[in-house]
């Protein structure tokens, strides 16, 4: 979505959304440059940096054109920002970054990260990412995000100071472990399934599109050979010569036109890719919800078992099979004092457990509430954006057909004069 679009959507939004950063500040990723430097292991490396420009909205509208504030960031810093947001707002569908490596390429495009076309498309993608975050009702007010845009030095340290890394690590560990939730939330399960399907279908689409682009390129380019042979042929003809020669020029023009066509299509592919990665973000939210629910279930389970233990201890009956029960049977029961101490400990634990369950429950509820709001927002955004993308794809196809008709009509005129 372009800045203007986002802003225009903003005028219909409720007051709270007018606090969106994007309403106050113009953001763009204006340039890309190559740099060389020493990396963490003291080796020379070449990397690309991107210029982020910001300017208060009011300034521009006043007619004066102040120089924007700017700073340079590299891709890895964007990644850091996003990881921070992921951990800090696990219930939000966090906008994705443009792809790290070029995928779904067709032969003409290079898969090289240093390729200028790739860098340019990445620049656009990074700008899009910033605009998305800046127009998100929750993310746009994040302070780390704000300082990412405004504080060149020391930003990294500020991020690490939040301690999000530790949270990230533990979360990551938990997410990677396999766990089963006893009562999965139907809505989230459906959403996750949707995310899976969306990811699968867009991948397929991008793969076929890349192959089709390859073939289309071939079709157009071979017509250039007509240009050459008509030219050669016209040299041995008397009356037919002129017509052939000029028709040949049109064939050359036809062959050349495919470059623009496919460049435009690349933009469409990028729009699809954004939602391919968004699908992933959606699945991540669902997975994190599962984790939250799992942790709640674990806490609840733990509490139940502790309560049961207390009951058994209090009444002296051993209902559940436990090692304690067996050993006590074998080695004799405890003394009343021991029992008393144990009971007291259990009581504390149960109190703590109840607190934990309450906490976790609240967390879960909060998560579900916030997540679901954002998922609804995301759904609307997705429907809108993809519909727009399809419209512009159709318009692209129309333009391609019209150009084709024109070229062949021109050629036809030349042929008819033969």
């Amino acid at each position, binding site marked *: 979505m372009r800045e203007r679009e986002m802003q225009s959507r903003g005028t219909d939004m409720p007051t709270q959304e007018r606090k969106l950063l994007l309403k106050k500040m113009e953001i763009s990723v204006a340039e890309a440059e190559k740099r060389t430097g020493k990396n963490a292991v003291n080796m020379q490396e070449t990397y690309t940096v991107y210029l982020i420009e910001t300017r208060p909205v009011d300034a521009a509208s006043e007619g004066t054109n102040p120089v924007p504030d700017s700073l340079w960031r590299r891709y890895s810093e964007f990644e850091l920002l996003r990881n921070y947001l992921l951990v800090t707002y696990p219930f939000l569908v966090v906008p994705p970054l443009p792809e790290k490596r070029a995928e779904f390429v067709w032969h003409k495009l290079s898969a090289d990260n240093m390729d200028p076309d790739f860098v340019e498309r990445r620049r656009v993608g990074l700008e899009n990412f910033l605009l998305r975050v800046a127009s998100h009702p929750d993310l746009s007010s994040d302070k780390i995000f704000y300082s990412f845009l405004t504080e060149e030095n020391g930003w990294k340290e500020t991020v690490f100071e939040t301690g999000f890394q530790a949270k990230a690590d533990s979360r990551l560990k938990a997410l990677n472990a396999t766990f089963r939730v006893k009562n999965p939330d139907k809505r989230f399960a459906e959403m996750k399934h949707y995310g899976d*399907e969306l990811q699968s279908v867009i991948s397929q689409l991008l793969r076929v599109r890349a192959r089709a682009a390859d073939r289309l390129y071939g079709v157009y380019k071979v017509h250039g050979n007509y240009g050459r042979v008509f030219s050669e042929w016209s040299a041995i003809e008397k009356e037919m010569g002129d017509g052939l020669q000029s028709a040949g020029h049109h064939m050359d023009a036809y062959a050349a036109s495919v470059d623009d066509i496919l460049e435009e299509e690349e933009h469409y592919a990028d729009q699809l890719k954004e939602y391919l990665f968004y699908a992933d973000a959606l699945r991540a939210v669902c997975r994190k919800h599962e984790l939250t629910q799992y942790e709640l279930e674990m806490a609840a389970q733990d509490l139940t078992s502790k309560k049961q233990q207390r009951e058994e201890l209090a009444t002296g009956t051993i209902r559940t099979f436990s090692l304690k029960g067996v050993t006590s049977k074998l080695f004799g029961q405890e003394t009343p004092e021991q029992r008393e101490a144990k009971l007291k400990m259990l009581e504390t634990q149960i109190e703590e457990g109840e607190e934990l369950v309450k906490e976790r429950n609240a967390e879960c509820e909060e998560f579900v509430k916030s997540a679901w709001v954002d998922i609804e927002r995301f759904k609307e955004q997705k429907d809108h954006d993809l519909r727009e993308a399809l419209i512009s794809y159709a318009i692209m196809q129309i333009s391609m057909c019209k150009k084709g008709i024109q070229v*062949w009509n021109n050629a036809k005129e030349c042929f008819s004069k033969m």
Partner: protein
Amino acid sequence: TEGERGECNLLAPLRTLTTSVCLPIDCPPSGERNEAIAASVDGRHPLSSLYCRKRRTSETEQAGLILPNGTPVDTSSLASSSSLLNRLQLDDDLDGETRDLFVTVEDPKKHVSTMETYITYRVCTKTTRTEFDLPEYSVRRRYQDFDWLRNKLEESQPTHLIPPLPEKFVMKGVVDRFSEEFVETRRKALDKFLKRVADHPVLSFNEHFNAFLSAKDLNKRQGLALLTKMGESVKYVTGGYKLRARPAEFAAMGDYLDLFTQKMGTIDRIAQRIIKEQSEFLMELREYGPVYSSWSSFEEDLHDPLEGVSGCMSNCSSALEELTEDMSEDFLPVLREYVLYIESMKNVLKKRDQVQAEYETKLEAVVFREDKKPPVPSDVEKCQDRVECFNADLKADWDRWENNKRQDFRQLLTGMADKNIQHYEKCLAAWESLVPLLQDKQEAEGETS
């Protein structure tokens, strides 16, 4: 020089109506021949000074068409110049009012017998020519018959360029010989063939052609009896005579044909390559559409737009399929026919060379004979006649061929352009009808939100 001229007195006054008439071989010797409208035979031959210089009149130059009358078998005396001129004028005007022979090929029908299945075409003729018994004919002919006719024409009119037929063999399994499209394409080509023969001032009077148009049952074994004298004479020209120098214009023809064949080959390869690339693109397109369809199956609001896109792609696929089929069926065969045609043209050029070579060799033998025996065999005269006739016929037919070639290729290439335009128009219509559908929904959404 005059001295030389004196020696070859047989040659000096030789003038023939080479551009307009091809005289029969047993024509009376030079003394009785008339001042003629003729073209020079050769400028660079070492013995050319011994040839009679023949002028081209402006008349024939402007007309561009030089019209030999080539049926010496039943030809009455051509001695009188006025009758010759009459014939000239008659044959000059081909378009419109003076055309007296109309031929069409129509109504293809399938015939199934125990031995084979084949297609016949109705050949309709309307004519006022006295060479035909009736003013109208309607006969059924199959491809074999056309092929027979063409071979007969080649045999009996070896100095002429015979129009091409569509290709004889088609790859079974690749092309359906009985499909409507194939049969129609063939019918058009056969129709063009007959029309070109009917419009030819010499070929149209050929008896084989007459038989083809009129005979109830085509007796194809009639061959030899109808061979023209010219045909016979050229047929028995043996090779082995060395040609000293090909006249510039015929050398140019040969060179042109070689280059032209090359270009045709290149264009054929390009066209095939395009068809291949388009077919492969088509394969991808056929996969592309259904993916949108399967996406739509798990979307709500996006269901209709995605289905719409899928439908569009499917329409574009059909349009592309039609384009590739058309190019395969209509474009490539015509190119190939021309290449085959050129082979037969080159053969005619070779024969011409042989005829000239024979003449030169015999002429040399006579010229450099030590003894000055006066009577000269009419053999050399006959050779010269042959050369001059051949050259005239060939030149006239060459011009005719150039014209037809221009028409054919203009038609072929504009056809190619048309097919591509139609393809894009179909795709355009599909996408254009989709956009308002997509945008309507959008407006509806905007209203409700």
